[in-house]
């Protein structure tokens, strides 16, 4: 396979989008807590005891983790969490504004709203929900999203709780922040679209859906408020779910990567079939090969065994050459085996396509092949570590290699920041859901729907026009502004007194061009931008200096606007310095003052400001010049 252009249409590439977006409707879905981000200070620890049937859906790694007795530590702050988040109090009634926001979206998409909403519990055992389940409810089915003439079907619209924020893990303890738990999320699932010529089509659909949601004025904006799950397949493959893609531009890259990966797996399957491999017999018995490998030369194998690790291995029939082949960067069967190893807490996996190496020479490899019964065309997969853990990990890897024989398997994958994907787990079967028995069903009456229908937000284009005319912006700028994750900051800036055109181009154009320079624009917090707007509004900083200041901060060289301004020599003048300049200007213009009296203020201000712009507050300058002018006039009279 070449790494050139892909013919998407002939691949039969289909992509379904599930868009999740936080709602900004004041508070959480089932309690009155604030939805703002908050750290600590309290914490508590929990286990989850899922019933065995919940794990039945063959996620060996999750089963393994649960068996290990993972412990969860939940960190909470006082404003963002209460006993509901702690799973210490039954849920309150559903947040009506959140429900009505979901209904509004349903009406905009022409979906059929259910007569009675039932809150369900969806089992989640990774600790991201204190209860061990996520509360979710189906609000509407069907409908259509119009994307530049293309009609994309809507499957379902659901309203659910966001999960707790993952704060990382240490050994067997996973840490989560409760501030995000319970924030209302709307999920819109679109029917798969057939990609005709470019993955950009998928981006456009996602962007159109994003604009529709934003046009309600009820969704949260900013980093972490939105994520897309992509259901990707090509003809002959299972459906791959890529979970949690946060940025739109990444979608195109991921779709392209998956198209390449899936078509490679199709080729692998065809080759295996040509080699006569059958799914059920594609892997051999898992055997302890510690004695063979204990004779390995210097390298990681010997070091691991020296520390008491065991080595286990199995033969993969017909896989010789297919584990290590990398037809496209990152597309390699062996890479997914390594992800499985990682899921079990192992450092990695060794397969015969990379051997000789790691201190295993030709002779040892022959012995190894003989031990696990690997023939000429077979590969050998080896893992090192605690015998029980290694056995379970190898069982999971063998299962995956058997699956591949019948074609690219359905599975769940995670996006990587560079637009590839990484194996996470086998695709779960049907969602494990049962009713939330703490809440009664919620009837949706016609009068509510009627009221919402009468008050639907104006269409996007209309909102753009009114934004453009209200603030004197170009249509293009207004459109990008309304679509921006930082739209709220623009409104704040205008409120502070920043000229709308200045604020808009900073929020949209400046940030985009800085991103193009390769700077980490996402590291700029809203607070950074607020500081900047305050400085501009007060005249302490010239708007022309803003890109430089932002560049200082985005590159990590400065932590605040003041620090950046200081580093750039834009630091505010001290009172004494400012006074010296004012006095100097007034002294030089005694004639002007004598002629014009108080009306000399304008020209004097102009001259002073031209010298201190960006370094002194305009109002302060005005006050100083006025005082010194009055004094000068008194002296003259």
């Amino acid at each position: 396979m070449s790494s050139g252009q892909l013919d998407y249409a002939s691949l039969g590439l289909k992509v379904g989008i599930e868009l999740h977006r936080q709602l900004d409707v004041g508070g959480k879905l089932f309690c009155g807590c604030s939805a703002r981000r908050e750290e600590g200070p309290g914490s508590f620890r929990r286990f989850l005891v899922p019933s065995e049937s919940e794990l039945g859906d063959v996620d060996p790694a999750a089963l393994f983790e649960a068996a290990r007795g993972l412990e969860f530590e939940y960190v909470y702050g006082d404003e963002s969490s209460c006993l509901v988040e702690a799973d210490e109090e039954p849920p309150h009634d559903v947040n009506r504004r959140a429900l009505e926001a979901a209904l509004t979206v349903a009406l905009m998409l022409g979906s059929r709203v259910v007569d009675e909403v039932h809150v369900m519990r969806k089992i989640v055992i990774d600790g991201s929900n204190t209860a061990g389940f996520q509360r979710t409810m189906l609000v509407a089915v069907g409908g259509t999203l119009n994307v530049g003439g293309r009609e994309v079907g809507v499957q379902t619209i659901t309203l659910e709780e966001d999960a707790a924020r993952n704060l990382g893990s240490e050994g067997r303890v996973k840490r989560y922040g409760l501030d995000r738990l319970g924030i209302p999320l709307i999920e819109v699932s679109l029917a798969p679209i057939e990609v005709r010529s470019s993955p950009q089509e998928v981006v456009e659909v996602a962007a159109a859906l994003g604009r529709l949601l934003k046009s309600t004025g009820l969704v949260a904006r900013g980093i972490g408020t939105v994520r897309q799950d992509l259901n990707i397949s090509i003809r002959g493959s299972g459906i791959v779910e890529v979970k949690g893609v946060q940025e739109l531009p990444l979608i195109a890259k991921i779709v392209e990567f998956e198209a390449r990966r899936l078509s490679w797996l199709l080729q692998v399957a065809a080759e295996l079939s040509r080699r006569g491999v059958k799914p059920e017999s594609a892997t051999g018995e898992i055997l302890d090969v510690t004695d063979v490998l204990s004779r390995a030369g210097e390298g990681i194998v010997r070091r691991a065994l020296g520390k008491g690790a065991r080595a286990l291995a199995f033969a993969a029939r017909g896989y010789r050459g297919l584990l290590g082949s990398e037809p496209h960067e990152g597309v390699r069967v062996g890479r997914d085996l390594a992800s499985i190893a990682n899921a079990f807490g192992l450092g990695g996996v060794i397969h015969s396509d990379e051997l000789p190496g790691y201190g295993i020479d030709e002779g040892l490899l022959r012995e190894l092949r003989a031990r696990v019964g690997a023939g000429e065309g077979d590969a050998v997969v080896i893992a090192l570590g605690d015998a029980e853990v290694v056995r379970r990990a190898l069982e999971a890897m063998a299962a995956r290699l058997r699956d591949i024989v019948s074609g690219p398997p359905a599975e769940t994958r995670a996006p990587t920041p560079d637009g590839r994907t990484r194996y996470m787990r086998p695709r779960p079967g049907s969602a494990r859901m049962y009713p939330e028995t703490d809440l009664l069903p919620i009837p949706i009456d016609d009068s509510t729907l009627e009221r919402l229908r009468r008050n639907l937000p104006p269409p996007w284009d209309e909102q753009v026009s009114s934004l453009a005319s209200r603030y004197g912006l170009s249509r293009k700028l207004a459109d990008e502004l309304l679509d921006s994750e930082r739209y709220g900051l623009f409104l704040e800036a205008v409120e502070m007194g920043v000229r709308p055109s200045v604020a808009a181009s900073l929020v949209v154009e400046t940030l985009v061009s800085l991103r193009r320079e390769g700077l980490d624009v996402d590291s700029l917090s809203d607070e950074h931008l607020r500081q900047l707007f305050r400085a501009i509004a007060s005249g302490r900083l010239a708007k022309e200096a803003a890109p430089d200041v932002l560049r200082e901060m985005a590159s990590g060289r400065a932590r605040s606007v003041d620090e950046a301004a200081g580093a750039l020599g834009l630091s505010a003048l001290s009172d004494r310095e400012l006074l010296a300049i004012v006095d100097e200007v007034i002294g030089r213009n005694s004639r002007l003052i004598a002629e014009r009296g108080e009306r000399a203020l304008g020209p004097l201000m102009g001259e002073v400001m031209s010298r201190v712009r960006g370094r002194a507050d305009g109002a302060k300058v005005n006050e100083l010049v006025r005082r010194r002018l009055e004094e000068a006039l008194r002296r003259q009279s």
Partner: protein
Amino acid sequence: MEDELSGYRGPARELLLRAGARVGDEVELALSDGGSISGTLMPRYEHADDSHVTLKLGNGYNIGISVSRISEIRISRRRAPQPSPEPAPARAQPGRGEVLVLGTGGTIASRIDYRTGAVTPVFRPEDLYSRVPGLYEIARLDTELLFNVLSENMTPDHWSALAERVGRAAAKGYRGIVVTHGTDTMHYTAAALSFALEGLPVPVILVGAQRSSDRPSSDAYTNLKGAVAAAARGDFSGVYVAMHRSLSDLEIAIHRGVRVRKNHTSRRDAFQSINSGPAAVVDLRTMEVKKLEELPPRSDPGSLRVKPRFDRRAFLLKYFPGMDGSIVDALVDAGYRALILEGTGLGHVGRQLQGSIARAIEEGVFVGMTSQCIWGSVRMTVYETGRDLLRLGVVPLGDMLSEVALVKAMWLLGQGAGPEDMRSLMPSNLRGEISERRRIVA
């Protein structure tokens, strides 16, 4: 009898009956405004309205569809006959356990069928072992479902039956006995067993759950493990309550049955020892049972005396500002023999009650004083009101919890105590229900 249209009433039920549909059937509902919707017919919550039909869609979600919009119900597939639950592999032989688990109601453990949403309680030892990781390693269990009542429906008759059953089990040589119980009135039952089982040779541990057992986060499993560990390994005897010590799943507190109270509606650490700390604690990581107080040791079964009778003619009256004496008169007229007052502060009620209280005592009704402050002891010599009540014959009950005092009065009356016995035994410490010292650090 099992209702095939469980929870459905009124128009929804009629519609389903006409169509011959049963819960569990796969149905297609034709809608009057066009289109149709398919799914599995689900049972209806009892408190939900009667004008919607609940359907589980293929994606697992339940939705309700208005009866008025359904023009026709087509049954596409009948519910498959329910397979009998698969027996878990037997790991223990019946009748040879070390700890007896007695069920009184509620669900200590359950399984969920995600296809139908049905929650099935499990109680057999082998099911408990498979449902509660690590339980099998603590002790072999026998289980027996004694009755199945909600905790708020428990009565002194249940206490009696439970006391007799626990007594027989203790005499039979179990290492300990665990009683699973709804949490709302668990502390009343704990007090009742404390009095009814004199000279108890082994630990009897009551246990419940604040979060239902159908959720992975339920405290039922950790509480049960803590209770079984205390019953099997605790080197003490007596009646206790085992529940979470904090919000974390780290420790199970073992509270004395006569000192414990449910102090929160929903938190998993709702149960607290009053005027003392917990008696012992179970570390959930090591399953070690650690005593925190001097406790009666295990003893010979021969010392056990079961005294299971309770007389219901005792009443707990909470005083509030302005309360009228007529309620006291009415209780006396209704034949009550003991009145436990939950007074204010150090043990006071308003002057307007004094006449009625005097009359009650004259008629041989025992009147005892506890405090609605919950923490601390009554002390009726400090203020004039208290001294007046003492003069009338009201008996101060120290730091005994008002609920415990009520149960104790029922029990003493049940043992045939007359007015003089009541006056002397109610304020005496029989089972650790009254203490002389209240520590600075509780």
